[in-house]
């Protein structure tokens, strides 16, 4: 079993705001992250897949093709967007990095080739804060 990771990035605006709470409660829980007019981040995304290398190519997956899939199904939907307003798969969800990493998994997994498994989605919100998701269960 070999693990291969592809790094991608996107820049986006968001805010943390629960519409079923008052403004005061949002401020109390989310602090400056609840700022009305958004703020933003340079997100760094690491997609790790696993499997056995193909004996003919030596590749687990062509890393260029993996990049194209990640860009097509994830990055193009998020880059230079407002996560709360512009992203179909985040509608009705809190735009935390925790929820984002789960939805990125769900967006990407159906499009991966059959011979590889998705192992981990790792997402840096800042150079000092990141989340990881290894799938359900």
């Amino acid at each position, binding site marked *: 079993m070999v693990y291969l990771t592809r790094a991608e990035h996107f820049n986006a605006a968001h805010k943390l705001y629960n519409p079923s709470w008052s403004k005061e409660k949002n401020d109390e829980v989310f602090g*400056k992250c609840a*700022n009305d*007019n958004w*703020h*933003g*981040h340079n997100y760094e995304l690491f997609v790790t897949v696993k499997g056995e290398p193909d004996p003919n190519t030596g590749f687990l997956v062509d890393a260029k093709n993996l990049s194209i899939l990640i860009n097509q199904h994830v990055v193009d939907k998020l880059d230079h967007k*407002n996560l709360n307003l512009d992203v179909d798969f985040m509608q009705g969800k809190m735009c935390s990095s925790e929820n984002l990493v789960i939805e990125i998994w769900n967006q990407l997994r159906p499009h991966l080739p059959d011979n590889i498994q998705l192992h981990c989605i790792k997402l840096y919100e*800042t150079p000092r804060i990141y989340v990881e998701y290894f799938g359900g269960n």
Partner: protein
Amino acid sequence: MADKVSVFRKEHFNAAHRLYNDAWDYSKNEKVFGKCALPNYHGHNYEMEVKVTGEPDKETGYVIDLKLLSDIIRQEVVQKFDHKNLNLDTEEFKDLNPTAENIVVVIYKLLRPYIESKFDLQIRLYETPRNFVEYPVS
């Protein structure tokens, strides 16, 4: 005369912005600024490197106390811009396009009054890990 030394302090802020010239229509903005002109904003982790150059003080050995420099940067820059929308929430960019170039000049002007005039001041601003600007030009 003692040798000059440059000292640096790094600080950061996270902000939303968009690039848009109000004097142009949407299609021209889209043509020039591309996805940076999208209406609902996007954002960055901005990283600043503030460089102060001068002769170390004979008694302290410091050019400037870096804790003091950090306090000045946080008070004059980070508090204004962190977790804000640069276009909507700041006085500085009400009528100024918040490009990295314009932001770095604004940061310099905000900090210069608090740094003794005998010192040179230079700011490097990273908009992304791959895009960065400097002011003034040395």
